[in-house]
């Protein structure tokens, strides 16, 4: 089946799009413009989306390689009731947002990290985010946001264990 799940919704992919990039598909076909094209060669990280919870550079990912998989874009990060995900809130509270162009990729890359490791060290946060470039903030507040946001994932993990 030529389908994929995007933000929990099943999407049928028209054949003409299969050879195109996932970023173009998301932006031009699904009109999900949250994720950005910053460099077009998979280096800056502005186009990052999660495919089965793993960060992927959508600008160099062919649609055909994600068929049957789950894609999460920044538009899918909000809670079901429309409120901000605690990680998004942490980005706001830490002042981790300036021009906003790198923000969606930053949030998603951090989300992927914290899903698999809710208790990251400083070094682990840096290693996870080193491929997401930001020219405005100087990263300090982004780092703070991820550390603050991690609390939510730890609590969530705690609950699952109970």
């Amino acid at each position, binding site marked *: 089946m030529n389908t994929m799940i995007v933000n929990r919704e099943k999407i049928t992919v028209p054949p003409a799009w299969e050879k195109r990039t996932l970023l173009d598909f998301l932006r031009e076909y699904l009109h*999900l*413009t*949250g*994720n*950005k094209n*910053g*460099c*077009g*060669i998979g*280096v*800056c990280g*502005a186009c990052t989306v999660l495919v089965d919870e793993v960060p992927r550079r959508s600008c160099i990912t062919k649609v055909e390689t994600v068929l049957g998989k789950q894609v999460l*874009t*920044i*538009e899918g*990060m*909000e809670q079901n009731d429309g409120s*901000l995900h605690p990680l*998004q*809130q942490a*980005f*706001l509270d830490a*002042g981790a*947002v*300036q*021009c*906003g*162009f*790198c*923000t*969606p990729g930053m*949030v998603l890359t951090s989300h992927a990290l914290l899903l698999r490791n809710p208790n990251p060290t*400083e070094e682990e*946060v*840096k*290693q996870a*985010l*080193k*491929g*997401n*470039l*930001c*020219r*405005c*903030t*100087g*990263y*300090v*507040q*982004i*780092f703070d946001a991820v550390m603050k946001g991690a609390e939510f994932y730890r609590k969530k993990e705690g609950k699952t264990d109970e």
Partner: protein
Amino acid sequence: MPKKTRHLSGKLHVTGRSLFIGEEHISADMCHVAVVFSTCAHGRIISMDAVSAKALSGVHAIITAADIPGENNIAHGNNDNQPLLPADTVMYVGQPIALVVADSRQVALEAASRVTVNYEEMPAILSIDAAVKANQLYVPPRKIQRGDVARAFAEADCIIEGEVKIGAQEHFYLETQRCLATPDEDGGITLYAATQSTTEVQAVAARVLGLANHKITVDVKRLGGAFGGKESQGTLWAGLAALAAHYTHKSCYLELRRIDDIMATGKRHPFENTYRLACSADGRILGYEVILKSNGGAYIDLSLAILERGLYHSDHAYFIPNISITGYACKTNLPPNTAFRGFGAPQGIFPIEIALQQAAEKLGIDPIEIRKRNCYITGQTAPYGMEVCDPVGREMLEELEALASYKQLRNKVDEYNASHQYHKQGIGVVPGKFGISFTTGFLNQGSALVWIYTDGTISLSHGGVEMGQSVNAKVASVVARTLGVSMDRIRVESANTKRVGNASPTAASTGSDINGYAAENAAKKLKRRLSRMAVRYFSERGIACVEEDLVFADDAVVSGDARVSFADLVNFAYTHYCDLGSHGYYFTPGITFNREKGRGTPFYYFVFGAALAVSQVDLLTGEYECKKIYIVHDSSQSLNPDIDLGQIYGAFVQGYGYCTMEDISFNDKGQYLALTPSTYKFPTICDIPPTFKIKLLDLLREHASVLGSKAVGEPPFIYGLAGWFALYDALKRSVPQGSAIDLAFPATPEAVLMAKVQSAKKETV
């Protein structure tokens, strides 16, 4: 005091709902524009073959200089002549020479790649040296002089001489250059342009299309970063999109690919400077002579203003009784170099800082101490004759010493160095003194438009462009404070030439100063009108009061025990024929400069600060790591300390990248060699040290701007230079005392290794 809003679009950004240029106002039949770029640094176009490009299905038009209906000149505010598309001679690699308009981006790019151009190559001048030899200068050398420099050198105990070559810097705004042009019903065009200057885009698009300015509307909601790179350089791409829309009568969208953006746009100016410093035995500066030469690129762009700011900052934070500053702006065949945060100041500041550092070594004085001894004190004037107001450089350095526990830190670093042979640590310190105002005097004006609607909500338009610096939050906070209302009543509109005409570029750190004052003036007019209405409102209810006793606070107007909510008062005012719209205007008083004499008042005030960096160098590989950063910054009474902190972090890291890792060389064909983020290295999160402390000093200064605040955009960029001095200091600790270290700028790991190797060679000789 309500919690201060940091970013009006923060929620939109973290949810991905914020819309950037090209993400709204698009239509189904929108065309895409691709650019045919010059591959030749200097040459005549002999022929252009677009047959196979035109043959591609989906191509609507190929547009060249011959299709420009108006004047083929995009130069703004100066006497240069820069074509939108050159008719016959190309001046740099990356210069647009034709446009392809097609149904899709893919087809447009494919068609553009099929256009072949033949050139008759002409000699290209690329370096500053070559330009000076060929007398390719934009203007005769500029000079600022004071006192008797020759005598100062004759009387000096210590003379330092040297030469510094400072590299370029790529802006790397995450959002590349772009513009969406949509035709209006009357032949006009609306431009959604990535620009810091709506006015310049409007005027230039009108000129090249042969239209009146009022036929062009420029609208900018937000930019994905700019840093000066969209002050003048957004104009070319907006002009091209406008031309395509005018020619095809369709919406046309032009978005540069990253590789094309880096290839074709100007950078921070490379400078080559020579300096001589004369000091007394106790480290006081007696005289200083500096020659600044900038590589301006193929068109003048902002090169003169940038050179001037370099000249005005050559003294940096220090009083220099006898001084001679000379500046050259060179014309070369590179993309026109342009504005970039700091705007010539970093290149003017670096020579005096390295000279002082070397004087400190030679005289055996601590590098902070020598800087403190020379900082401006009250009553002293800058070389161009202006009194340096609120001179707190020395206090900043003292605060920095306390913040960083400097003496202990120095001891720790010395201990580390004593016990490590192949790794050395170094400490770098720079103060900051940055002049605020456009040095082009007439740009120091702003305006704003405020409407209060009948439900008590407010629409605010101002001349500033939001590019992440939160100018919208700052200007809105001025209106909120003036009218005593909460921030969520205020909606800040896009920057639009229809609501705010003749806006100055959002640049020179002045965005919140000039537009904040303008918005305050607009809000004050409304407050006066509402005060009259409030007196009437209360008197109709049997409460006597006078306008002077009214307090506007907490979304209400209060007189003693009487209170009316802001919304009720506004509705009352409307039904009693009160004008609820207001335009505010402001200009910065007293900014004048005589270029011939090199004298005047180019700044309204100065921003001071100081920074210290600790870095560790691996002497065997040249690799290094920044370990600690401390910054003290004088913000006077900040409109929003949280926003200022973000600006300081960001500016420091950008400045740190500039003097350490960011290297954008070009080859002998005038082509830039690093066109992607995989080859152009700028700081990542891994370059941020575990200790990064900033102290904001929020004492109200006598000389400041709106509501006692100070500008913040550019000044902290200078602090980044501390990173270079930390590496320099580390290298100095690896060689015998008195040995020279010749460290390049930027101090890439390769440059650090070369500096070490060169000094080792000298030792063995």
